[in-house]
């Protein structure tokens, strides 16, 4: 009886939900866009130097792969909640579009530390897209508990923090482009987790909403597959030497292959009746790619990469299965399991990188080993700490009531954000 009038008139449900849930969004978004256009008008110009056609198309290929991973892969990776598919995919696209414009400017200003004109070329676009990925990763921890205004705010803070981390790391800690970008996974994961820590928790009895249905979980598989296919491009794109690139592609490829196999095997193994859990597959399949990221150009032979993929897949699933209890005790709610997809495998990758670097230096100059280990460890922990500090800050700001966050009862429900007649009925 209740369903009929709601079904006919979609916005009637507004009376039941909060009115003007995120009323300031149009104003905010328009202001931001106008500001961005003005800054672009005043401070940017295109790179006019002539360039080689081959290089140009090569860079363009990489950009396409990275955008595909960000827009399709990460967008659909986070669609396993039954009532949150639309919001996950669409908010992801919005954050990516806004984030790229913001990062291009930010990177340009931070690099020259003055207000000269920024020259835009394809590689600055590529860097910006890859940096913007950090927001899409952290969003996985908070999606369903925040509205788009809060996400935009998070994006602004997180991208500023990440660009600063990269610039400081490059200037003070000898990080190169590749390594500073590869720590994106740990940075984003811990940023998201600490931000999520400050937000109100969903009540314990909210099982219904978080349960998956068959077809949303299939959509999440689509995202996983796209990430899986294009991951070698992501890991190899910032390396300069051709030989390093080649090694990076091969190592990533093998690590991903092994972690996919491990994911399915172990998922069946840890279940009491040997059944495979789709959530494990979605995330653990990618763990190998994350773990091999920092060290992908240093690993000398495929078997090492494969071993790394095996370990990454293993810890990813074991954590999903057993450590999530720990998280509940710590009072952190991780919507899409970002910690076991990106957090722990990323840490593992960072440590492997430190070890391999030390190993490499050991053959040439034994006295340098300690220095090398210290700076590399410093770089890794710097990324993690920056992520945590700014995550806490963001979470604190996001928990204010002025952003009109969704009611706790409406968590993981995209319905309040969308108009459509049939959304009121069961779907």
């Amino acid at each position, binding site marked *: 009886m209740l369903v009929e009038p709601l079904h006919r008139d979609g916005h009637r449900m507004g009376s039941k939900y909060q009115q003007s849930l*995120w009323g300031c969004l149009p104003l905010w978004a328009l202001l931001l866009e106008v500001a961005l*256009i003005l800054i672009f008008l005043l401070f940017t110009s295109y790179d006019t130097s002539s360039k080689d056609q081959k290089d*140009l198309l090569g860079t*363009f290929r990489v950009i396409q792969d990275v955008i595909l991973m960000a827009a399709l892969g990460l967008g659909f990776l986070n669609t396993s909640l039954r009532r949150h598919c639309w919001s996950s995919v669409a908010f992801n*696209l919005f954050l990516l579009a806004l984030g790229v414009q913001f990062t291009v400017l930010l990177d340009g200003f931070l690099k020259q530390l003055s207000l000269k004109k920024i020259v835009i070329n394809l590689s600055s676009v590529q860097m910006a897209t890859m940096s913007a990925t950090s927001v899409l990763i952290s969003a996985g921890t908070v999606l369903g508990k925040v509205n788009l205004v809060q996400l935009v705010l998070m994006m602004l803070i997180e991208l500023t923090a990440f660009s600063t981390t990269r610039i400081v790391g490059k200037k003070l800690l000898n990080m190169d482009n590749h390594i500073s970008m590869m720590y994106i996974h740990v940075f984003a994961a811990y940023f998201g987790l600490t931000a999520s820590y400050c937000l109100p928790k969903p009540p314990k009895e909210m099982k*219904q909403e978080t349960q998956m249905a068959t077809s949303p979980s299939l959509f999440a598989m689509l995202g996983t597959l796209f990430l899986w296919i294009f991951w070698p491009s992501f890991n190899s794109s910032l390396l300069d030497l051709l030989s390093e690139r080649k090694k990076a592609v091969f190592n990533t490829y093998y690590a991903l292959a092994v972690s996919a196999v491990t994911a399915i095997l172990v998922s069946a193994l840890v279940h009491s009746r040997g059944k495979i859990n789709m959530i494990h597959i979605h995330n653990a399949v990618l763990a190998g790619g994350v773990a091999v990221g920092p060290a992908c150009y240093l690993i000398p032979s495929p078997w090492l990469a494969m071993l790394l993929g095996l370990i990454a897949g293993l810890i990813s699933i074991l954590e999903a299965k057993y450590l999530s209890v720990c998280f509940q005790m710590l009072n952190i709610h991780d919507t899409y399991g970002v910690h076991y997809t990106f957090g722990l495998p990323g840490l593992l990758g960072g440590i492997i990188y430190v070890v391999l670097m030390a190993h490499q230096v050991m053959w040439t100059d034994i006295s340098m080993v300690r220095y090398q280990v210290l700076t590399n460890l410093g770089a890794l922990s710097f990324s993690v700490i920056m992520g945590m500090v700014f995550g806490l800050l963001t979470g604190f700001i996001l928990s204010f009531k002025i952003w009109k966050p969704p009611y706790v009862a409406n968590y993981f429900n995209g319905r309040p954000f969308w*108009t459509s007649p049939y959304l009121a009925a*069961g779907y």
Partner: protein
Amino acid sequence: MRFQFSLIAIGLEVTMIILFGVFVEYETDQITGTQSLSTHMNGSLDLYPLFQDIHVMIFAGFGFVMTFLKKYGFSSVGINLLIAALGLQWGTLVQGYLYSNGKKTRVGIRNMINADFSAATVLISFGAVLGKTSPVQMLIMTIIEIAVFAGNEYAVGARLLASDVGASMTIHAFGAYFGLAVAGVLYRPTLRKRHPNEESVYHSDIFAMIGTLFLWIFWPSFNSAIADPGVNQHRAMVNTYFSLAACVVSVFAFSSLLEPGNRLNMVHIQNATLAGGVAVGACADMVVHPYFSMLIGSIAGIVSVLGFKYLTPLFTTKLRIHDTCGVHNLHGLPGVIGGLASILAIAVGETDRHSMGRQAAALFTSIATAIGGGLITGLILRIPVWGPPADEDCYDDSVYWKVPQRTEHDYHFQEYGSHSHQEIEI
């Protein structure tokens, strides 16, 4: 007419094969020496990745964008595949004939890209008549529209010498107005009230989003594929990229602004977010600043959202044109904006004023040809022998497809959904 579709399709394909046998050969080069040959081969394969991107857009992008109807997913993706496959063969022939001055056509990667473009035109028009036509009608429309398109494209590109690198005018505006003209002639008064099948369900909209994302991701390739190599191509890529990004932000803002309760509308997100790519097409490779392309993208996005909100209902009720996918808002209006933007870009640039007239003429010619061709095509399609679906069977796959019966799984799924729904309402 049981075998009508099969016979027409086979007949068309046999004709294509014969025509290819007579008129088409591979691109070969009169080069001596192995060294120069190998370098040259590399050069001609340079465009292959861009071609692949466009191929994904045509087959996956356009196909999935149209799957938003709840009972019409098979036809959207399937007929899309049929039209595109036939269209690119016919496009190769017609464009090859026009540009080769009667000699044999030499096929290279560039011809394949142009053939895909001509298929895109038909797919845009297909969006306007989606759900109201039979496969046979679509085959006929493909043949006629590509012939008209190739003629117009030749007139604009080779005779008027207008610049339209991302084909805002020759593909998008042309395809949209052609489709609208056909839809106007095929108007069914009984469908004036919303047909019960003409709506989406949650999952069909997610499928449509897959198409949107494919189109969004690969649009820079679409706009830069036939640009001059080097600086121009680079500019086309970056301009398109920023235009699309700005467009997304404005569309979200305006969608939320116009809907009651500040909610978002999935139709806007699926379609209007691409308007920036369409609108920047004509001036993508010109010397414009990044801010200019962002401005074009934002304006196109906003106009597109406004179009979906106010113009489409007006078209259906007042103008008697029923535009199923809203191609007028996604391709028509942004295409026109693109044409105007290219005139503006030339006006502020240092290039000669002569070319402003050329751009205006190109825009006018494209739209006029499209409407003329569309009206004639519509009249041909109205001949009652092509087996169009009855009014009550519109937007339904089961007329032309073998559709699986409901399985136990579906029942379970639905039960599960309604069950949980009630619990939440209480």
